[in-house]
């Protein structure tokens, strides 16, 4: 069945992409929360936060982008959950098609849908004064990191999408992920945090990813942050991918 994998995955991805393009409101909802947070932080809290020479909108955009991805993958879990509940899943499973194609279709759609949300959020940030002198390579590096992060979180989202008993259960897993950037270097420098909180903030994945993206945007040397960020993303990706596929095989055998 492997020879049909690409053909099947392409057709099924076309299907899930239509689900996204025919409910554009989900992409807008995904972008609204991060945009509201961005407005709140830049125009309300930001003035009181000392970020040195970097303007606050430039400082916090990387964290907002991660929040955008974390709320976007909740819809990935929701779309997969809906397929599992309906009879369409049984139909696909009883057809002579590559079974992993359905999962990959949801994963690829998640990458595209999140990319669209990210572009919308960056667009709003530009209106709010976000500026970067970063070159093409730096932008590509940022895109690469965000893509890898989306892929890793998407495979996490696949697990509740496959196993949830209710719609709420399918998307509830994303709340802690949305919250994670708040206890990181995304919105305030970690130096002001008390010991244990600071230790957590500096050693969780969001901080290294935020620092790497921020340094790329502000044309600073990325240092070890980039490698730590990549290691976190790849590590989460490998573990989540393995668990998601194990869950899928259990669910379909």
């Amino acid at each position, binding site marked *: 069945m492997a020879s049909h994998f690409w053909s099947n995955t392409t057709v099924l991805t076309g299907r899930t992409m239509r689900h996204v393009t025919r409910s554009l409101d989900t992409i807008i909802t995904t972008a609204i929360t991060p945009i509201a947070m961005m407005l709140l932080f830049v125009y309300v809290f930001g003035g009181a936060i000392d970020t040195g020479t970097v303007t606050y909108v430039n400082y916090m955009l990387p964290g907002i982008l991660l929040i955008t991805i974390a709320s976007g993958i909740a819809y990935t879990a929701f779309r997969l959950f809906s397929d599992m509940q309906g009879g369409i899943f049984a139909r696909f499973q009883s*057809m002579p098609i590559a079974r992993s194609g359905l999962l990959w279709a949801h994963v690829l759609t998640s990458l595209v849908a999140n990319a669209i949300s990210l572009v919308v959020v960056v667009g709003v940030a530009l209106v709010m004064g976000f500026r970067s002198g970063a070159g093409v390579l730096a932008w590509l590096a940022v895109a690469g990191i965000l893509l890898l992060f989306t892929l890793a979180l998407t495979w996490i989202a696949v697990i509740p999408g496959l196993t949830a008993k209710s719609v709420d259960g399918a998307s509830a897993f994303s709340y802690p992920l949305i919250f994670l950037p708040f206890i990181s270097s995304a919105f305030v420098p970690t130096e002001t945090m008390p010991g244990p909180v600071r230790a957590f903030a500096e050693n969780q994945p969001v901080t290294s990813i935020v620092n790497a993206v921020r340094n790329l945007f502000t044309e600073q040397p990325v240092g070890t942050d980039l490698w730590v960020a990549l290691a976190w993303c790849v590590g989460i990706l490998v573990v989540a991918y393995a668990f998601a596929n194990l869950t899928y095989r259990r669910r379909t055998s």
Partner: protein
Amino acid sequence: MLAGMSIPPTPGPAIHVRGLEKAYKELRVLRGVDLAVAPGSIFALLGSNGAGKTTLVNILATLLKSDAGTARVNGFDVATQAGDVRESISLTGQFAAVDEILSGRENLVLVARLRRLKDPGGIADRLLSRFSLTDAGARRAATYSGGMRRRLDIAMSLVGDPPVIFLDEPTAGLDPQARVEVWQAVKELAEGGTTVLLTTQYLEEAEQLADRIAILHEGRIIVDGTLAELKALLPPAKVEYVEKQPSLEDVFFAVVGAGR
């Protein structure tokens, strides 16, 4: 329409089940099911809720693994040749398996493209017309009535002309008009040479459609035969005399002696 598929002609039954068993933990749903379905016939599996009809269909459609026994569909073993079985069948499950966000036509094109058939658009248009859905073809399936959704569901199962079709409670929850429409579609299927195994809890449905009827009860097939054979199992019609007890009213008038 079978381009890309190679399904060898199979002598013998289209569906052949021997000693099939399946348990969910302690609950033994199937306790040794035997049945054979002749090619091109309609076979009705009758049983109450929870009798194991869906479990049996899901095993035959390669969605579930059995604990014991063998099952062959179109000559292929469901456990060891699942890929070949999937090439030979279509499943219309208990809940209409249509994509509600896509239009009726897009649903059919989707299945045709997944089966890698030539001219998916043409296949979709022919099926829409066959199931009287041409006018609704461009509308989203979410706007369809229950009967239309079921017809689309069955049409999707016919894409690629699989030789064996499973219909799990095809008329559950439909109004009488829609039920007759579905019956008509199923009859046409069998006339075209397709083998149909359908499950139902409606005796009338089995009577209307099936060449052969089996009753699944407590995990076993307890009866299997034609409608005439099943009717012969009933005791012959007989006349009974029932003693009619007097009502209190009769007693009252008898005692008071008042003429009515």
